[in-house]
């Protein structure tokens, strides 16, 4: 029996080793066009008038004051769990910005120390992590999270403690109401939904749209609502709407229904995990209309999982590695030099920008305490960041242009 046990262990270890030892193969040789998300157009920032009135209560918390020799900054990120790909990138981006600031001499000669806590992508863990950063580590400000569901409770903690928080990628509109301590470097779903509606109606000429929503995902439901509201305001018609939930792999039923209503565009507000199979299967039911969606599509893998069905589709993102801006080129090359690979999704750039907004505020802050830093963040204006030119609006949100990407064949040698 002992031998059998040993055998079982060895075979398990072998399998694990075989899998782990494998390195991804290199991409195709340069000079050969490959499918890529290519920047298509930019939609200038505008006030969509969605999402209701923003009420920002003023924090009564005392905040933290600098102690010791370093400026302590906290960060919450999902370094484990299902949202790890985004958490990892946001941390890498923020760390890069802070390392660069430190190499350039820090803030008035003081070095910045980034303390990262894992949220596991869970709201409760995120809340505890934020409490630990704010009360025991005494950080002056917090960066993160990516997911709105985790940012919500964490921002409440920061609001009551009087410590500013800059969210990396949480687009849920209502987060602005948390209070005067909450900021973000990404746009809100209200802006994203309106911007996509404008793009679809004006630029793509879509008048009758079908909507496919992940009803288990508040992000997707919210984005679909904002899109619908602005699209009908522009004069368009939503001819059909169908639903699925995260983890679904077979969408032919929903797509068969949508096709029967003859839409001339398909809006999918969910995450990329489900968008790939939807793109493959929509062709199977003959739904050959332009497909478009929001920043939940952001993953280099979508081009593979979507196959031919994703080509010619559009989505709105915060950033692209291929953008022709100096800040982007510098960011991509320094990121690659430090971590060995290009940023895998937009959270690297947004993590970098969140840190950049904070560093900019630290330089302008009257004193090294939470309240002064908050005031400096709130007056950020025209900061040339990676994801665009950032001005923080009165609602704490970054006002910057939205970027539309299109899936096309791209020749890397033409750079």
């Amino acid at each position, binding site marked *: 029996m002992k031998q059998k046990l040993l055998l*079982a262990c060895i075979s398990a270890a072998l399998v694990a080793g075989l899998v782990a030892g494998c390195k991804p193969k290199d991409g195709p040789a340069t000079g050969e066009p490959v499918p890529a998300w290519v920047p298509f157009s930019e939609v200038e920032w505008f006030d969509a008038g969605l999402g209701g009135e923003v009420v920002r209560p003023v924090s009564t918390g005392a905040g933290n004051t600098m102690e010791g020799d370093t400026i302590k900054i906290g960060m919450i990120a999902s370094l484990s769990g299902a949202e790890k790909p985004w958490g990892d990138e946001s941390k890498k981006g923020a760390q890069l910005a802070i390392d660069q600031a430190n190499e350039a001499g820090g803030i008035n000669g003081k070095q910045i120390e980034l303390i990262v806590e894992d949220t596991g992508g869970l709201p409760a863990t995120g809340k505890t992590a934020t409490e630990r950063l704010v009360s025991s580590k005494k950080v002056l400000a917090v960066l993160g999270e990516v997911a709105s569901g985790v940012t919500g409770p964490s921002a409440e903690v920061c609001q009551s403690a009087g410590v500013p928080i800059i969210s990396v990628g949480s687009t849920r509109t209502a987060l602005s109401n948390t209070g005067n301590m909450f900021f973000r470097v990404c746009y809100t779903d209200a802006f994203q939904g309106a911007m996509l509606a404008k793009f679809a109606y004006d630029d793509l000429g879509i008048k009758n749209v079908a909507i496919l929503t992940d009803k288990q995902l508040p992000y997707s439901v919210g984005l679909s609502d904002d899109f619908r509201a602005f699209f009908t305001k522009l004069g368009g018609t939503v001819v059909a709407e169908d639903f699925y939930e995260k983890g679904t792999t077979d969408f*032919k039923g929903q797509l068969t229904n949508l096709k029967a209503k003859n839409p001339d565009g398909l809006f999918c507000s969910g995450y990329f995990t489900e968008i790939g199979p939807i793109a493959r299967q929509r062709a199977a039911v003959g739904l050959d209309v332009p497909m478009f969606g929001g920043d939940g599509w952001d993953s280099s893998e979508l081009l593979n999982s979507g196959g031919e069905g994703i080509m010619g589709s559009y989505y709105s993102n915060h950033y692209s590695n291929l953008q022709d801006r100096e800040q982007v080129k510098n960011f991509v090359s320094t990121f690659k030099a430090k971590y060995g690979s290009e940023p895998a999704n937009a959270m690297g750039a947004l993590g970098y920008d969140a840190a950049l907004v904070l560093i900019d505020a630290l330089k302008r802050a009257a004193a090294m305490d939470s309240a002064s830093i908050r005031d400096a963040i709130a007056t950020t204006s025209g900061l040339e960041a990676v994801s665009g030119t950032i001005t923080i609006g009165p609602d704490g949100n970054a006002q910057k242009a939205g970027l539309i990407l299109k899936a096309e064949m791209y020749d890397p040698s033409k750079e």
Partner: protein
Amino acid sequence: MIFAELNWGLLDQQLINGIQLGAIYALIALGYTMVYGVLKLINFAHGEVYMVGAYIAYYTAEQWLDKNSMSPWLLLAVMLLGAMAVCAILGVTIERLAYRPLRGAPRISILITAIGVSLLLQQGGLLIFRTSPQPSISEQVNPFGASNFKNLPILGDLTISWGQAAMFGVSIVLMLLLWWFVSGTKTGRGIRAVSHDFSTASLMGIDVNRMVAITFVIGSALAGAGGMMNATALGTPLDTFYGLLPGVKAFVAAVLGGIGNIPGAVAGGFLMGIAEALVIWMGYSNFKDAVAFVILIAVLLVRPSGLLGSVGQEKA
């Protein structure tokens, strides 16, 4: 009022979609039901075995073998058999290391262990498998591939995609093989005997440990096949939680059909798939999972041991 909205022309197409979906549910449900049959254990790690099957298929197609230079049919066969083999080894290893030492322990202990194994594979898989960016099997691997989009007409306007037709065909072949194995071979008879009465079977000279191991081999291999086919045909990006939802659905299918009963699992799987498609057809796709559970409750109210489960099968 509800019926006025219905598009009757789509009903047949949606039924076909439902039958395809049901075949995969049935394949996974068989693993739950067989393990429950012999051990009276809900193997919560079963969905994770399915996930590993999908990953093995991915690594075989995209990294271990050169998809550009070999015959797509051979590649698909290697992916399917490889996923089944690795899952079989994984299943039997889980049984040997986690469940067999607890054979005499209270059933709740082994149930908790099953949940533990499930979590271990989900979280431990993050260390072993590539999850960032989430990998998916490219369309070109599928020889139905570019013509994945071309449909096979069945009758009139009715169509089924080649990939889905192949998935359905392989599932049916595997189920028929299983049926032959369980009802027609000596080992199959042994498994049925263990399932009927564990301790008496062991008194009759049946090597129960071997039968349990074989059950895990078969159940896990079927899950591996399901994982490979779904990942290949649909192109879903993989992560280590890939088996969570299919696992839950297949578990419901197994209970619906009468857990422990093999034809029951197949019937439950098809029923779930068709019910889901019909709910979508009626325009209530946001309730499709709720409906699955409503059907489960309704069936269990009338037949507490499931559709085909025998009354009194559960021994105190």
